[in-house]
């Protein structure tokens, strides 16, 4: 019994429960084909960029910040890799390394502005989102380009029945879990949870915040590389939808936006949940609603509408499960 209670009071609970619910519904609408390896591989490889972006966002949120520029970061990395490898003839490995450095640099710029100018991260990253989005448009004005076939074959393939993209997620997650054992990981949480106490305990707030955003930038860069391998081309608008979805995944995963409390496990579950919602809506339309002629002509729009509505409902329900932990106030 105490095991159950411990699980229910841990940070990621809402994420795990939502994910479980989504899997059940997905099996119902999709049938037995859900359990094929090909299906798992495709769901996971399509959603790996979002999962990794959600990990990056979690680190920033644990530090009591928020990063609206994750999507622009991913887009800029994607366009840089494509431009360097297509236009300037760099090898794809070198281009990817440059992309990763660019992602880190973007995070460092965010971190510098937020930590040392003390601008609220919400507004600062809102501004840099526009800057990096504009840079991506300059780097690659129109969608296009390609990557060597072995890159996307490797990314979409599987080893020992496990999709290769899962290994990327595991490596990124392990890096953060390892860092959590060292002072810096604990400092990131401490600054997010209780800034004044952390300061009194001798932690340099600005430095920790800078490192948190830089780390998030690097991880977003990895997400950018994944999306490049997934789509095998460049697109200056590719990351637009990821910003909202990765924040949603973090909230669904039970991490507190006020900082300090939560973890990447819930966020990963939240991100997979969002991916499954897309899947569910797609199969729901294909298997049940094809005979309504009124819907058919606008099916793709209505699918998007349904997906977004479910995301909002999910957000609302995730916040409901967190609510019990807060003390009641006089007014809302």
């Amino acid at each position, binding site marked *: 019994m105490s095991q159950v209670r411990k699980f229910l009071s841990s940070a990621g609970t809402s994420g795990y429960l939502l994910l479980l619910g989504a899997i059940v519904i997905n099996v119902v609408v999709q049938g037995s084909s859900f359990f094929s390896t090909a299906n798992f591989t495709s769901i996971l490889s399509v959603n790996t960029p979002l999962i990794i972006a959600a990990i990056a966002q979690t680190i920033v949120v644990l530090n009591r910040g928020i990063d609206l520029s994750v999507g622009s970061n991913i887009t800029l990395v994607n366009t840089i890799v494509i431009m360097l490898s297509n236009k300037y003839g760099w090898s794809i490995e070198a281009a990817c390394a440059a992309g990763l450095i660019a992602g880190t640099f973007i995070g460092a710029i965010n971190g510098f502005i937020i930590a040392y100018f003390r601008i609220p991260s919400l507004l600062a990253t809102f501004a840099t989102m*526009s*800057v990096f989005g504009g840079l991506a448009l300059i780097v690659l004005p129109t969608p296009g380009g390609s990557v060597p076939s072995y890159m996307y074959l490797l990314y979409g393939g599987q080893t020992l029945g496990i999709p290769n993209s899962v290994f990327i997620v595991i490596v990124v997650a392990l890096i953060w879990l390892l860092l959590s054992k060292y002072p810096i990981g604990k400092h990131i949480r401490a600054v997010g949870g209780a800034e004044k106490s952390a300061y009194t305990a001798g932690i340099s707030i600005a430095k920790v915040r800078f490192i948190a955003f830089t780390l998030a930038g690097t991880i977003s860069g990895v997400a950018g590389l994944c999306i490049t391998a997934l789509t095998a081309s460049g697109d200056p608008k590719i990351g637009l939808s990821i910003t909202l979805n990765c*924040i949603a995944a973090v909230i669904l995963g039970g991490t507190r936006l006020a900082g300090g409390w939560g973890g990447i496990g819930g966020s990963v579950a939240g991100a997979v949940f969002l991916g499954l919602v897309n899947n569910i809506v797609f199969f729901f339309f294909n298997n049940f609603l094809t005979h309504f002629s009124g819907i058919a002509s606008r099916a793709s729009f209505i699918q998007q509408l349904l997906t977004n509505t479910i995301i*909002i409902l999910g*957000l*609302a329900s995730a916040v409901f499960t967190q609510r019990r932990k807060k003390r009641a106030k006089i007014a809302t």
Partner: protein
Amino acid sequence: MNQSTVPQLDLPPQGGRSAFHIGKLVRNNMFVAASLTIALFIAGSLFNPNFLNPQNIGSIFTLAVIMGIASFGQTVVVISGGDGIDLSIGGSISLGAVMSALVMNGQNSGIVPALLLVIGTGILIGLVNSAGIILAKVPPLVMTMAVANILGIVQLIVCNGSPTGRPAPAIAYIGTHRIFPILTVLMIVGVVFMFLARRFLNNTTYGHQLFAVGNNDNAAFLSGARPYIVRMMAYILSGVVGMLTGFLLLGYNSFVFINMGMAYVLPSVAAVVIGGTSFAGGKGSFSGTMVGAILLTTLASLLIVINTDEAGRQIINGVALVLILALYTREPSVRQ
């Protein structure tokens, strides 16, 4: 126009938590923004002598009116506090334009139905936003961003992917007619709107409650304001005014396209910051936002004069916002 819109101090009578600091800052903000605007006009005239001709100045102020009205809802939501921000206004503007073009379809008889539909939808948007933010406690940033996505899709569903229709002749007249080269009908609409907005924020019970709730939820609750109702009203106002901006923007542009309002999201936040409205809630003014809108529109116009493309404008807008934030919204160091 520029000088006359630099207003008096706009604080509510009851004042903020640290009124003397705020007063100084707001006055400062306005002064800095107005000087920057004049500097931009001078810079513009150096690149192109035509920048200062009445026609161009009139166009800049006309666009500033649209941006200012678009930012009204943002101002109210930010003043209402509780981390309030409304990123769905871009979606409201787009949907407002698409809907009113479809309903009016070039007929004056379509104006009233279009207005009713636009206002009704605006109220609905506000209700959805506030249901998520107040009932389910989703952070405003996330909720309004999600609603913005939904509005973008609804806009596509309403017009089945490609928007059609024209504004009614009367609305097109309001949107495009020039009385003198420097004075457009829309500018008069803007001045009237600003006057009403000021009265609304400073001289009505709701306005007072808005500032009170933004300053301190519990204190406002104990003195009789209902914070959840006041905030809900703020989001409803934002939705309605956003939709109406779409209606006006359609009149100004005379044609309609997808995602017309997207370009107003970042500037609306920037205008609010420039105008000295605090993101902590409880202090600010619409006059300040209007000055911010004029500054941003002048900047945008200057960027067009020096042939900057969409990408360049995005970058410069973002950099400008970072600089403005560095000037105005620095958080106190943890030591203080």
